[in-house]
């Protein structure tokens, strides 16, 4: 079957409607902090069954990739990430909004998502089986090597380098050990608080450090000193030619990088967005703009997280193995409608398989059409004076932190992170490396301990495969490079 016949299945009115419902719910899911795609998909599982396999799966997939579109909206407008994968968009997106370029940032993020989503499906169609096979070559030892490289590359995210960034990443790694041991069993550092067993929620900490931290910062400034947000005029709503020209290469780089990172088990979309930001920053011709609103810093990560969400479907479609919680719900949906994911999917249910693939092309177009007109509405939010907007944002953060896991503990974590965010801002510590530590910590710890158990005490397992060796060589080269190029890196700023 070809793309054309795939589109034919997806374009029947019934499937088209299912696709629309899916991407609409997905966009909303993305916009609301705390409500993630996994929870939204689980809520609609009963409807999936009633729709039948093809339409049902089209709808579920729509929620899944649609969520990556909306996530950036609140990051850009009010510095509160709607999804973990949009945390890094706060860095440049919110700065752009403060400069009056909210519309441009939102539009570029929608465009980037579209580019990545569409190219992602093409790559998925072409390379799914070999990539799935490659993903299987990664065992715990290889994943550990990968996280070592990841932490080294991403430690320099802020570009300021310095001991402060390393401290923040170390703090993030430490905080990630709170809660249930990732290998199961025992609570750690919970001080006998049963509700703390969930650990420190990533979305609560991100909303606290960025959103609440910003609110407190604004509140601490004398009113006269707060710069009013530049007035947004209608013709400023959309990106300029110059901005598009700068954003396009970032989108393509982000897509490719994100797609590959999508094959990593765990929160791959979040990692992909961080990695893309880091890449954009080091390759940009406008380095000085990073930290003050560089459009590349929105275009790259927002493309990367979409591409990663498509890449993450490969292990599911080719192997039937879910690598992330949201994908696990998609798998559940398949089982509920009687479809076996994995190698048999295409053979036993070609209609559903090609219907979903076809619908992803159409869904991305729908999402673009859905999101671009919304840019104007969203951007007008930045015209609301802070003193009215910020209380609403705080409420939004509280609800979001609670909704993530229906756990009141997360709300306290979020508020505490808010105070920490304020202090970090005051004393010029960058919160982003902390979040990288928090997201990489569990993967790093899990793979390290698994490899140690599997090697039965023999450390040779860490260098047993050429993949691991290549990773460590890369890590070593990076460290040497950083030391040579920036001797400042090991000294405090």
């Amino acid at each position, binding site marked *: 079957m070809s793309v054309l016949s795939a589109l034919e299945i997806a374009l029947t009115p019934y499937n088209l409607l299912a696709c629309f419902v899916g991407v609409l719910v997905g966009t909303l899911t993305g916009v609301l902090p705390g409500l993630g795609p996994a929870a939204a998909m689980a809520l609609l599982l009963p409807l999936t069954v009633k729709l039948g396999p093809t339409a049902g799966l089209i709808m579920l997939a729509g929620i899944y990739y649609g969520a990556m579109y909306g996530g950036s909206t609140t990051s850009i407008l009010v510095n509160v990430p709607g999804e973990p994968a949009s945390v890094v968009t706060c860095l440049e997106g919110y700065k752009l909004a403060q400069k009056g370029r909210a519309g441009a940032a939102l539009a570029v993020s929608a465009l980037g998502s579209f580019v990545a989503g569409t190219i992602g499906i093409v790559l998925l169609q072409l390379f799914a089986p070999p990539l799935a096979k490659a993903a299987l070559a990664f065992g715990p030892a290889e994943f550990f090597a990968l996280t070592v490289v990841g932490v080294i590359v991403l430690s320099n995210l802020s570009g300021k380098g310095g001991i402060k960034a390393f401290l923040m990443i170390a703090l993030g790694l430490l905080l990630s050990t709170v809660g249930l041991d990732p290998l199961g069993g025992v609570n750690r550092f919970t001080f006998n608080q049963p*509700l703390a067993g969930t650990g420190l929620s990533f979305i609560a900490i991100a909303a606290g450090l960025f959103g609440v931290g910003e609110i407190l910062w604004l509140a601490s400034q004398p009113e006269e000193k707060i710069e009013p947000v530049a007035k947004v005029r209608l013709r400023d709503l959309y990106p300029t030619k110059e901005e598009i020209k700068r954003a396009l290469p970032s989108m393509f780089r982000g897509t490719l990088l994100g797609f590959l990172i999508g094959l990593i088990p765990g929160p791959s979309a979040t990692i992909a967005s961080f990695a893309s930001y880091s890449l954009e920053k080091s390759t940009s011709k406008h380095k000085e703009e990073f930290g003050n609103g560089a459009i590349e810093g929105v275009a790259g990560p927002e493309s990367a997280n979409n591409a990663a969400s498509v890449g993450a479907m490969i292990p599911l479609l080719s192997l039937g193995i879910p690598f992330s919680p949201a994908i696990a719900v998609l798998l559940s949906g398949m089982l509920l409608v009687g479809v076996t994911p994995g190698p048999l999917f295409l053979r036993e249910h070609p209609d559903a398989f090609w219907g979903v693939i076809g619908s992803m092309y159409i869904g991305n177009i729908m999402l673009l059409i859905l999101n671009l007109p919304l840019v104007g509405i969203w951007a007008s939010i930045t015209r609301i004076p802070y003193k009215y907007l910020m209380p609403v944002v705080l409420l939004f953060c509280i609800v979001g932190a609670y909704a993530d896991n229906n756990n009141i503990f997360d709300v306290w974590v979020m508020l505490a992170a808010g105070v920490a965010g304020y202090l970090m801002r005051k004393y010029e510590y960058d919160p982003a490396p902390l979040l990288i530590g928090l997201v990489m910590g569990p993967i790093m710890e899990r793979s390290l301990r698994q490899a140690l158990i599997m090697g039965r005490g023999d450390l040779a397992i860490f260098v047993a495969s050429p993949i691991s060796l290549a990773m460590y060589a890369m890590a070593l080269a990076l460290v040497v490079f950083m030391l040579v190029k920036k001797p400042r890196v090991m000294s405090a700023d």
Partner: protein
Amino acid sequence: MIKKFLAILTASIMLAGLGLVAAGCGGAQGSSNGKTQEQKIEFPTKPIEMTVLFAPGSGADLLARKVAELAGKELGQPITVVNRTGAGGAVGYSYVKEQKPDGYSIVWNSNSINTAYHAGNMNFNYTAFSGVAELTTEPVSIAVKADAPWKDINEFIEYAKKNPGKVRIGNSGNGSFTHLVAVALENKTGAKFTHVPFGQGGLAISSVLGGQIEASSQLPAEIMSQVKAGQVRILAITGEERLKILPDVPTFKEKGIPLTLSLWRGIAVPAGTPESVIKKLEEAFKKVAENPEFKKFAEDMGANIEFRGAKEFDQFIAEQDKELAALMEQVGMKKQ
């Protein structure tokens, strides 16, 4: 002046909002009225909330949602499902335990009530709840790669005995039920494995496929796609009889290994819930267990229907608690 007034106003609204949140979390715990309701009670008169201890879309969650849907119809009030995950179930149990024992807060219970307590993740055990009804059991399967040299479980065990510790067997976490089953298998056969914990999310099977480990222990439903595609072979399952969806896979019992330990699921309420309310709930869930729609659904999910009423369920949980505690002691995971 007006600006300042507005600033104060918004600040106080923010504080009031915070206060409400704080009050909301504190207030829910208090006031359980001690009156015994002897006469026929009106129950339920409002929606019931079912706490699920595992993530949306997990095996526990899917069964729970089906049960909630069907039981809601029987009771004439909807049952809403809320996922409260974390600490191997302890987060959700702690929440439900603190709710009013009036039957409107129920929990989708499982062996996790035993394992979470003994692992030291909560300071109360199964006696903090009253069983309402057991509904399903799920066997645990030991799987290997399709081209693995072992024809059946006996050959596999034979090899493991000859090469102690050489067979690496993945599970869903230290002290998890799949881990304990693999340990019980060692006890019953004298084999010795190296247990590799993988946490939730199906990654053990990808390491089996990738050849990094030799076998894995998990619920059969989690690996149905790989089994159907012929990439993975299940050597044996626990439980008393074969699963309908896996008619060719023998039980350990058939193969001469007396290992039947299965994962049970059911409904529980905070201790102190009136008998009459428990009775009413028990009747509704009994009807769910007899419902052909549920039977079919459970079958597809790799689960067996096993109904136990409130009294027998309580007894059963107490027995299971002893058995699992002994296994956890053995792997050094028993903290209390």
